[in-house]
């Protein structure tokens, strides 16, 4: 028992070193550029694939492994430089959410590039030459390579610490991290510094990927799973803190390893599978830390705690002309089955479902000022709950209600933590939660069907015709959107917007801002869940993809495409996005790359968001003219 406990602890420490290496890169880059690089996990994935290829082309052996890893990391550093020069340099002044979205565009591009270059199969990596064996610890074998990894983490911690404290480069990095303007005033060449830090951070990401090969094959889902883990580590350790990242990586990896090590344990006669609880354990660790220290173990609340994610723009009270326009659109939508064929009916069903999904996020981001980067968690939770309820024999309407309520409850749970943060920290936390939800759906075979998902979830016979289901979806989604819109203009909406505009003032006039935001988070999650229930019944089946990170980002792109100022924005954005996606994905298999390039281009061309930038231009013209 003790020996296996020790082995698992060491195992956890080895994982922690690799994770720390990657997180370290993210933290360094964030410290200087203030950009959270969503594509950091993609760089790690690139490092892994390059590691496999370079090992082979260098002829294997010691040179192939270590030389290959180093070369892979250097190549990734070059890619990082390219990304910095082409994309990030143009958006340093943009709102932080837009920066995150832009780097997600890079995630999509890298993923399709890797798919194109290496194909969809997992690539088994080389084992480290000379370190393939195991040593006996308390009578149990432990891989020698993992022992090396355990040392590697602290070594890099010290190396980076020396770099930061003992070199001129490090002094500049620290100066820029403390106070960017001051560093610029002191004559630090910002452009060069940013690029070199980005190169260093990317190098570490690539190295982490290549060195992980002996433990894990290179695969196409690494990018998101790693970035989610890195986000967890960053949130738990405290955004920007290097020791925090190490401590958090150790805590999380060791706890996970223990869960795996415990395996099946019998409690009072029932067997309890701890190895399946790793994700729950990860969530619990994160929860406990955030309850005690909302900004992470080594983090502190940022100076401006204003929820400044959404531009504080006016919400005009409802006008009569708008009402007429809405009626007209509604009439066209209701009559649509008369003109559309089967294909377009299915597509339009998607459109109305995603309009509701986008509206639910728009409510949270616009009136609430909280950007959820994991909104698909609630969409998916609703879908799963409805599917399971339907499979258990509940009628359609009851299944819808189940989805709505379950998603709302999940949002209530996650939201409790989320409303304590703001800005990028909030974005990272919501994404980490969503990734945990995804992994639970992926692993919990008995309930969710695991990677196969759930099939055969159809609406009742009366709604089997595509036209009939379309009308039901339109009705339910329309009601949901109307409800979201009503909230914004109701007393609750006023209090919510007040909390967003000025937390201090809102509290000073008696508003419990956290609670208001919490309730808003839950309602937004419930509406997203409602969209999810409509989705599962329209497709007839669902898989963990339903709540994957890409879907969360789809929703964000929809909202930003249309603008967060009004609820009409996200709805219009959803319509555009869904139709475009349908159009492009029929033309090419690399739809993700196309989307990625468009997202990057959009953020570069419209650094203040489409609507915001157009407004700004318009204002300029008015001033000039």
């Amino acid at each position, binding site marked *: 028992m003790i020996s296996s406990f020790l082995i698992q602890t060491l195992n956890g420490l080895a994982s922690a070193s690799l994770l720390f290496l990657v997180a370290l890169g993210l933290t360094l880059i964030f410290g200087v550029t203030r950009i959270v690089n969503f594509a950091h996990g993609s760089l790690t994935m690139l490092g892994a694939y390059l590691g496999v290829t370079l090992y082979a082309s260098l002829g294997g052996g010691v040179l192939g492994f270590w030389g290959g890893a180093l070369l892979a990391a250097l190549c990734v550093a070059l890619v990082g430089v390219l990304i910095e020069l082409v994309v990030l340099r143009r958006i340093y002044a943009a709102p932080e959410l837009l920066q995150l979205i832009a780097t997600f565009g890079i995630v999509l591009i890298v993923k399709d590039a890797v798919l194109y270059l290496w194909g969809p199969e997992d690539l088994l990596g080389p084992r480290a030459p000379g370190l393939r064996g195991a040593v006996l610890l308390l009578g149990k074998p432990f891989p020698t390579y993992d022992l090396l990894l355990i040392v590697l983490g602290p070594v890099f911690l010290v190396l980076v610490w020396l770099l930061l404290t003992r070199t001129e480069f490090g002094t500049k990095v620290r100066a820029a991290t403390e106070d960017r303007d001051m560093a610029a005033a002191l004559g630090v060449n910002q452009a060069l510094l940013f690029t070199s830090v980005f190169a260093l951070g990317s190098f570490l990401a690539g190295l982490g990927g290549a060195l992980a090969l002996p433990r894990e094959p290179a695969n196409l889902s690494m990018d998101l799973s790693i970035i989610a883990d890195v986000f967890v580590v960053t949130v738990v350790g405290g955004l920007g803190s290097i020791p925090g990242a190490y401590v958090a990586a150790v805590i999380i990896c060791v706890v996970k390893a223990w869960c795996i090590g415990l395996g099946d344990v019998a409690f009072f006669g029932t067997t309890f599978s701890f190895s399946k609880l790793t994700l729950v354990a990860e969530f619990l660790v994160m929860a406990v830390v955030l309850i005690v220290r909302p900004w992470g173990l080594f983090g502190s609340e940022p100076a401006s705690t204003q929820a400044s994610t959404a531009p504080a723009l006016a919400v005009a009270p409802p006008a009569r002309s708008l009402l007429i326009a809405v009626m007209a659109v509604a009439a066209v939508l209701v009559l649509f089955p008369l003109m559309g064929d089967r294909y377009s009916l299915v597509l339009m069903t998607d459109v109305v479902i995603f309009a509701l999904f986008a509206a639910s996020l728009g409510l949270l981001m616009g009136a609430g000022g909280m950007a959820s980067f994991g909104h698909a968690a609630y969409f998916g939770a609703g879908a799963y709950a409805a599917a399971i309820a339907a499979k258990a024999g509940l009628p359609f309407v009851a299944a819808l209600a189940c989805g709505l309520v379950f998603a709302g409850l999940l949002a209530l749970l996650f939201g409790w933590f989320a409303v304590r943060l703001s800005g990028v920290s909030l974005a990272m936390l919501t994404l980490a939660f969503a990734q945990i939800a995804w992994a639970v759906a992926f692993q919990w075979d008995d309930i969710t069907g695991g990677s196969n998902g759930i099939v055969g979830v159809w609406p009742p016979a009366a709604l089997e015709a595509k036209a009939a289901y379309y009308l039901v979806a339109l009705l339910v989604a329309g009601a949901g959107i109307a409800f979201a819109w009503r909230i914004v203009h109701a*007393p*609750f909406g*006023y209090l919510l917007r007040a909390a967003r505009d000025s937390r201090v*003032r809102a*509290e*000073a006039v008696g508003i419990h801002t956290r609670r208001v935001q919490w309730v808003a988070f839950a309602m937004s999650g419930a509406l997203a869940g409602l969209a999810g229930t409509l989705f599962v019944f329209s497709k007839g089946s669902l898989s963990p993809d339903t709540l994957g990170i890409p879907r969360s980002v789809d929703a964000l792109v929809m909202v930003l495409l249309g603008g967060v100022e009004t609820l009409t924005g996200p709805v219009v954005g959803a319509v555009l996005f869904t139709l475009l996606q349908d159009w492009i994905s029929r033309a090419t298999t690399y739809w993700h790359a196309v989307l990625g390039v468009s997202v990057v281009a959009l953020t570069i061309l419209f650094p203040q968001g489409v609507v915001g930038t157009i407004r700004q231009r318009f204002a300029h013209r008015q001033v000039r003219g």
Partner: protein
Amino acid sequence: MTFAVDGLEKAFKGFKAVDGVSFSVAAGELVALIGPNGAGKTTTFNMANGQLVADRGRVLLDGRDVTGLPPRELWRLGVGRTFQITQTFTSMTVAENIRVALLSRDRAFGVLATTAGRYDDEISGLLSEVGMVAAGAQQCGALSYGDLKRVELAMALANAPRLLLMDEPTAGMAPRERAQLMELVTRTAQERNTAVLFTEHDMTVVFGHARRILVMSRGKIVAEGAPEEIRTNRLVREVYLGQTAPAVR
């Protein structure tokens, strides 16, 4: 309402911004808290309305210990506050700002209820009190500094406060406007029997309206008394003349 603080202390990273401050303000009394920049006035205010938790000391309302209560609860007990750096809801109109305060007062949290036209009379009443009646439809983000101060005051008055804490209420206003606003505050204090504590750098305002003056320097109250006493107090002159800031404008 009698408002009192007793032995308040607050340190920021070892630096004592407020160091053992005690005083009280009686119902209907107008008291000014003055002192050079960085004396600790705003920090004292922040502890008084619960925004900052004091390291030591107590805050008392009518003898009841309310130390550590958050601002929202103190507001329900009748504490209204205006900020040195104005805090308003910039995406909303002036009238909507007031409406938020009134909705909160009535605990109106509905998600389906309508707000159109709600409180219109009360809002215009409050706005005319602070001389902003014509500005109801204006966006708060576009207002001048002085007007924002007025909006803040109207929001504070929305809950019929029994203690009004005003941090530099007339900053950014022309001399005539300053006098008008302080007259309004004086009237309110008398009519509603409200205790008023304000900070101010304009000595005309301070000596023209305060019934009693507290002088703060480096975190401590160094003098206290009626305007006439303070005017002739040697220590007070030293506190101000010893500073670079042009305190007496």
